[in-house]
């Protein structure tokens, strides 16, 4: 299945990525090959996927859960130590005048 540039642009928007025209050209060609590869999953396995019985996830009852107790957590200043210019709030460049 060939994928169009428009579809790639739509996907990029969903993934919050942007491609230059040159990147888009190259990426669309590569992506075609990648989708063809992913499509090999549709080679039927003997009897088709319909016969695969889904075992699903183990059912966990509420009795299996640990008690919901408040425990000490990391201090805010440590967690926010990687934020550039944090001053009680996240500051970004002004984008609206």
């Amino acid at each position, binding site marked *: 299945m060939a994928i169009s540039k428009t579809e790639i642009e739509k996907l990029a928007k969903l993934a*919050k*990525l942007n491609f230059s025209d040159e990147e888009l050209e190259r990426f669309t060609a590569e992506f075609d*090959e990648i989708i063809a590869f992913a499509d090999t*999953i549709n080679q039927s*396995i003997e009897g088709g996927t319909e016969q695969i019985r*889904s075992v699903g996830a183990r059912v966990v009852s509420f009795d299996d859960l640990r008690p919901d107790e408040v425990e000490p957590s*990391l201090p805010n200043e440590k967690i*926010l130590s990687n934020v550039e210019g944090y001053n009680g709030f*996240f500051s970004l460049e002004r*984008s609206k005048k």
Partner: protein
Amino acid sequence: MRAGISELAKKLRNREVSAVELTKAYIDAIEKLNPTLNAYVHLTFDTAMKAAQEADQMLKEGDAPLLCGIPMALKDNICTDGLTTTCCSKILKDFKPYYDATVWEKLKAQGAVLLGKTNMDEFAMGSTSETSCYGAPLNPRNTNYVTGGSSGGSAAVVCANLAAYSLGSDTGGSIRQPASFCGVVGLKPTYGAVSRYGLIAYGSSLDQIGPLTNSVKDAAIVFEAIKGGDKRDQTSADYEYDSSLAECLDRDIKGMRFGVAQEFFDGINPEIKSKIEEAIKLFERNGAVIENISLPALKLALPVYYIIACAEASSNLGRYDGIRYGYRTSSYTSIEDMIVKTRSEGFGDEVKRRIMLGTYVLSSGYYDAYYKKACLIREEINREFATVFEKCDVLIAPTAPNTAFPLNYKGASPVEMYLSDICTVPVNIAGVPAISVPCGEDAKGLPVGMQLIGRRFGEATVLQAAHFYEQSAGQVIGVYEGGVGI
């Protein structure tokens, strides 16, 4: 013969060498070799020297744990409190985690000495470590070749004796394949055997942390130290293994049932195939029972893996928005524009490809055709593994269909590179443990790896079989000259 962890521990206890002296010796070797090999991307010598002094104190007081004072390395996706951890991505430039991964917390409590963080494919996405934003590490055995990936740096530092052992992570072969390419031992434990708290996520239902070492015994020692349940990782389990794993190693393999599935050998380089066949004969000569078995769903393992891993990656990597940590673009017109530019400038091509594939297979209209179907086939693969492990104790397979690729190899498309993971991804899909051990060299002198796969929580059997092979086969690959001479 290079000193293993037990020998180093003995030397430390006999006062033949102190932890500080040992650490200095590793630092000297790293300073000499790392500028060429590019195996370490962040060096932590100051904290290493401090840890070594503390280890000497622990050793002096007596009753120190086995790993106390032994210098080691961590892959750059394992969080270390206050020490730069970047996943070798521009988007995590200068990121300093504010907590320790459980594996590092455990090793640190034992007095381990961290020398640095090792090079890897960006976000662990790749098979050569060439997608690292710091450039590729070089294979110490032949610097014209790649180390493999994604834990390429972790394999290279062990191979070049720039660390006594290292930890890597394995989502689709990222411990075993570089171990194979560099001629070291790499263990991917059972999914859930080791806590992943503090491992920067790629494919959460597949990721697992494990050791890269010089010997199977060392792999058992390190695995023993890091395993166990953790309430901060709900996928981890407290499995009770038979006594000490290192003690299981010397048990006889007579009567052990080895399964050989033809599907693992289709399209394999003939040189590699013949090395694995020699190993099978060695097991058979020593009383093992060889069973020919079949895993028909294996032919679908690769697309299943790439669909599931990329779907999970596209979700896991959604958190990189330039606001709370890491790289942020310099100019933008709105918050949306800032996030899109940050991600587009911060992620490399391979990461973008996988995020895009993940987004595609999860998007409306394609979810059932790809993601849901992949999850169903995953169950079929699990069932086939469970069935073969009713009559086999261990499966034997190559670790990779080829030996190390030349550096900057341009002959392969992204999909052709994905195909090289054919032997390792089924293990992650099924969540079972597997080890790669060196089993010979190809005509170019590059190491070949053999993979031994076990049932869930069957690490003891896998380690026992691998140790038996290592002891019986003798010196199957050349010894790397260099690194620390202790």
